[in-house]
């Protein structure tokens, strides 16, 4: 039976707080943009942009990043990642980029995302926002803004379900089935 770690209200509160933190740390929204990692991160980035607009009354650019082309596990995975669109319709050079993902785990996706961003230009800096940090890092990567820290074991998975994907907003902790 999966355990619900966050419900709709928890997610909304976390995003509102993170939006405030992002504005505080960056002293406003000047030269700031959000880039979500396909797919969950893209929805969260759009919501954060709306939260930031509600607070600061400023529009903030949002892009989406597909990291499949930069993965380090293509020749060991059995299932091939689907190539999605990367849509960053603005020049990233000299911008402060807040990278947004749903779950931070090994850090390998973030490494891939940083490489992908660097190929688009030379950002002023890259910051990281995640809804869930579940630990077990395999690379020296740390999030700047975290919705919730959740200690997990390796035989568990964290699933972020969002209403944009047709479900309802919640975060679930599940046991991994053997052989899955």
């Amino acid at each position: 039976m999966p355990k619900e770690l966050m419900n709709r209200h928890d997610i909304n509160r976390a995003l509102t707080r993170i939006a405030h933190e992002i504005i505080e740390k960056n002293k406003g929204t000047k030269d700031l943009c959000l880039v979500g990692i396909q797919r969950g991160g893209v929805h969260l980035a759009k919501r954060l942009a709306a939260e930031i607009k509600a607070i600061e009354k400023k529009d903030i650019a949002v892009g989406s990043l597909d990291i499949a082309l930069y993965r380090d596990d293509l020749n060991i995975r059995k299932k091939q990642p689907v190539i999605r669109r990367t849509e960053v319709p603005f020049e990233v050079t000299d911008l402060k980029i807040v990278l947004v993902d749903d779950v931070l785990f090994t850090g390998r996706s973030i490494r891939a995302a940083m490489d992908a961003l660097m190929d688009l230009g030379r950002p002023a800096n890259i910051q990281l926002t995640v809804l869930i940090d579940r630990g077990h890092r395999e690379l020296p990567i740390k999030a700047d803004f975290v919705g919730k820290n959740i200690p997990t074991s390796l035989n568990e998975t964290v699933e972020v379900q969002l209403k944009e994907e047709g479900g309802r907003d919640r975060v679930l902790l599940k046991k991994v089935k053997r052989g899955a």
Partner: protein
Amino acid sequence: MLKTKDLLGIKELSREEINLILDTAAGFKDVLGRDIKKVPTLRGRTAVNLFFEPSTRTRTSFELAAKRLSTDVINFSVPTSSVVKGESLIDTALTVQALGADLIIIRHSSSGVPHLLSKNLRASIINAGDGTNEHPTQALLDAFTVKEKKGKIEGLTIAIVGDIAHSRVAKSNIYCLTKLGAKVRLIGPPTLIPQEIKMMRVAVFHSMEDGLKEVDVLIMLRIQTERQGKGFFPSIEEYSKNWGITSERLAHARPDVVVMHPGPMNRGIEITSEIADGPHSVILEQVTNGIAVRMAVMYLLAGVKRS
């Protein structure tokens, strides 16, 4: 994921597999529009261009596609004059595989050569044109271009004009476009449209004026001038007069018709410069899309562990 390790022809692909290739190509086209037109996706892989027939554009397109994916690529030149028999052909390919090739891109004047290699090699085989059989990546880039220009393929009326009989491009296009739900028409002289192709869910026209009515997309084929004087058509001038596309003729098609050509063009024969360089032409975009589509094919074949 594609079901097999090889791309031999469109005939062997399902509609879902074709759509997967086209969707994947859209992601790669984004890469081609950037300052840094290269991704590390297939780093450490090796592709070999094994061309037994002369080709500049297709070979260059594959070479560039491989390089954009960070794959090492080698052009294995084969003397075009020598007739390569079954045994020595497989030996050549096995040698290329032993050199470390993960992908072998093959063009050969005999139909079925890629299929033969597919059975004998572990490496992924990509058919870059075999005899009069198929040229699958050309059809895929044509479909990608149509989808990009028209937003869809299903329900469109698409005409292919010219030497259907000797054209592997035409054959691959017919398989591809009919599988995607387009209404395909063939236009040309009876001598250049073989009987068996009429079985392939296509309509056949022997007049440009009739065939072009209501057409959304027009694919002009290159007339192979070496076919002249072999009884297929009386002369180049006569062919051009009856089957060449001109502005007057194009007026019979839909106003937003898109004109494509696989290249190289015979300007003034099958297509006038006015059309080739005009607002309906997407011929140069086809070239760019070719790289994206070939990157997608290489990624889907070599970017996964196959057990």
